[in-house]
């Protein structure tokens, strides 16, 4: 593997990665994207491995085998655990970047101070800062999402928290600057671990005050950090493939975070430092309002007569794993000539595209999944809106109540439908911790219960019913 062949392979791998992401713009070509990605990665790994400077192969083989051994089971987690898996993999990415940066620093230190140019030192310090904070931060995020016992779910806050965090960051940066200025001082190798320790600590403290429910946005931001750590590694190793792939990853994290923040009408700062979802301010005055209940039989009858039913799924559908029952309902209604569409809010559920994967898992054609902006104009013509475990994304307060934490967030106009059925288990609020007046509306009927059970009942009514009409 000459230098020329290595460089040519890296260019090829870069092009394949770009195609991989490009093909994700359409579900029809998306799987080709995966093949392109695998091909690019294979080319990059083999080209690197076959260089003459690589002389020890045992550990490489061992690590690769171990990677397969852990990676294959990790890829078979249930879909509800995908956010945790993603966070975990950012942790791994951060760790890898941090370790390579650390290794390279000590190596160059030993080989002689002339290796530690200012440029390299800046890149190394950025790499380890970003790498290690992504490592612990992502582990915390994964833990919160997995609801690991000893990691607090609710945000942990105390006075002056942001100042302490900021102070920590300053100290880490200051030490970093000191090492950059004097990379080959005798004290530098001792200060280096302190920077690592501070980064690790900072990762933990950064995530502790953020509620489990804000994790998806945080994960996207950590994704961007992991990408930037890879870019920094590219600068350290003078490797343009790393720079490019890292920049692609960083863009993805950034754009997903922006999309989520926009769809929630919140700022980055508010997500990171707002300690959102911390106190559930139950407005005591609201309790006198009354819900109107409905039975599955009644609801089934009305849905049978409808010509357009819009199903609005939310986080509750994911919790109840109700997507397969929803599919049965969809089939039953279609059999009766009812048009059924799904209204997908960009932040329904707990990660971007959450509802789409779940419904796809249940074999519902993606052509029937309609985005918020497109379905809203049809809502006034809609006979029945069936809200399945969604709450904030259909809360009309977002449109006019300036005091509401979700004010300004675009919502699905469920309240404009002729009849609304809403499935949830209790009178508890959703993620944002606020009441939803949709449930008290004149045309709304509640179907209390677990989403899977309630939809199962609806299906039973419909299939036991009179068939075609």
């Amino acid at each position, binding site marked *: 593997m000459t230098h020329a062949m290595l460089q040519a392979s890296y260019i090829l791998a870069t092009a394949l990665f*770009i195609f991989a992401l490009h093909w994700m713009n359409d*579900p*029809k070509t*998306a799987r080709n*994207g995966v093949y392109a*990605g695998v091909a*690019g990665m294979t080319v*990059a790994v083999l080209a690197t491995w076959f260089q003459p*400077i690589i002389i*020890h192969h045992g*550990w*490489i083989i*061992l*690590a690769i085998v171990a*990677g397969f051994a852990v*990676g*294959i089971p*990790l*890829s078979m987690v249930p879909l509800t655990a995908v956010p945790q*898996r993603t966070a975990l*993999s950012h942790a*791994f*990415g951060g*760790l*890898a970047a941090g370790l*390579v940066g650390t*290794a390279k620093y000590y*190596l160059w230190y030993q080989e002689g101070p002339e290796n530690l*140019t*200012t*440029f390299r030192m*800046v890149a190394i310090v950025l790499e380890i800062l970003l790498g290690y904070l992504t490592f612990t931060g992502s582990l915390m995020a994964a833990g919160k999402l997995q609801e690991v016992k000893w990691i607090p779910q609710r945000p942990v806050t105390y006075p002056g928290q942001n100042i302490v965090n900021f102070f920590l960051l300053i100290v880490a*940066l*200051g030490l970093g600057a000191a090492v950059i*200025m004097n990379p080959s001082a005798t004290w530098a190798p001792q200060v280096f671990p302190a920077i690592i320790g501070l980064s690790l600590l900072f990762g933990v403290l950064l995530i502790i005050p953020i509620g489990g429910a804000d994790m998806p946005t945080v994960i996207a931001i950590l*994704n961007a950090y992991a*990408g930037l750590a890879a*870019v920094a590694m590219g*600068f350290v190793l*003078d490797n*343009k493939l790393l*720079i*490019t*792939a*890292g*920049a*692609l990853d960083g*863009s*993805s994290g950034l*754009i997903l975070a922006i*999309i989520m923040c926009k769809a929630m009408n919140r700022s980055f700062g508010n997500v990171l430092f707002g300690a959102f979802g911390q106190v559930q301010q139950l407005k005591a005055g609201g309790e006198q309002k009354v819900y109107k209940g409905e039975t599955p039989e009644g609801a089934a009858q009305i849905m049978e007569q409808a010509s357009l039913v819009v199903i609005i799924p939310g986080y509750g559908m994911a919790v109840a794993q109700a997507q397969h029952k929803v599919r049965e309902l969809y*089939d039953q209604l*279609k059999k009766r000539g009812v*048009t059924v569409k799904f209204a997908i809010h960009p932040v329904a559920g707990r990660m*971007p595209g959450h509802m*789409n*994967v779940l419904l796809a898992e249940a*074999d519902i*054609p993606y052509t029937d*999944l309609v985005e918020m902006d497109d379905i809203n104009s049809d809502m006034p013509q809609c006979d029945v809106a069936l809200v399945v475990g969604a709450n904030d994304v259909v809360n009309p307060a977002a449109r006019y109540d300036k005091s509401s934490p979700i004010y300004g967030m675009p919502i699905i106009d469920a309240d404009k439908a002729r009849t609304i059925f809403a499935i949830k288990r209790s009178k508890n609020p959703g993620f944002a911790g606020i009441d939803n007046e949709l449930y008290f509306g004149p045309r709304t009927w509640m179907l209390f219960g677990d989403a899977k059970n309630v939809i199962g009942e609806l299906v039973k009514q419909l299939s036991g019913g009179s068939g075609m009409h």
Partner: protein
Amino acid sequence: MLRRLLLSGASAIGALVVGAGRALAESPAGGEGDAGPDYWSMLFVFVLASFIGLGVIRRVSRLLHTPLMSITNAISAIAVVGSILVTGSDYPPTIRFMGGIALFASMTNIVSGFLITDRMLKMFKSEKPGQGGHA
């Protein structure tokens, strides 16, 4: 108190920026035969790659944002390249050990990232062929 913190923060960041600037300023002139890696090429590549990333990702179908997260995970595990170099070169064992852990971590991401992406994408179907109804 807060002010002092902010000031010291600013000076730490300032030191970093000055360092980076000095690094780029002292970088070789490239072009006609100087020594050392050309840092400006790397910056150039970074800027171009960011443009590509922002352009391509913005056009990813909203339907596929979950698989997008897992495929970019897998791709960013390109850190595997650096890990192989550290693990397999003629370096002291402690250094190589760190590389080995990094290699294991990257490889896990590659394998699980691509596999789970493919698993999710397989689920997306436009319309069941042998399916009743007439939507």
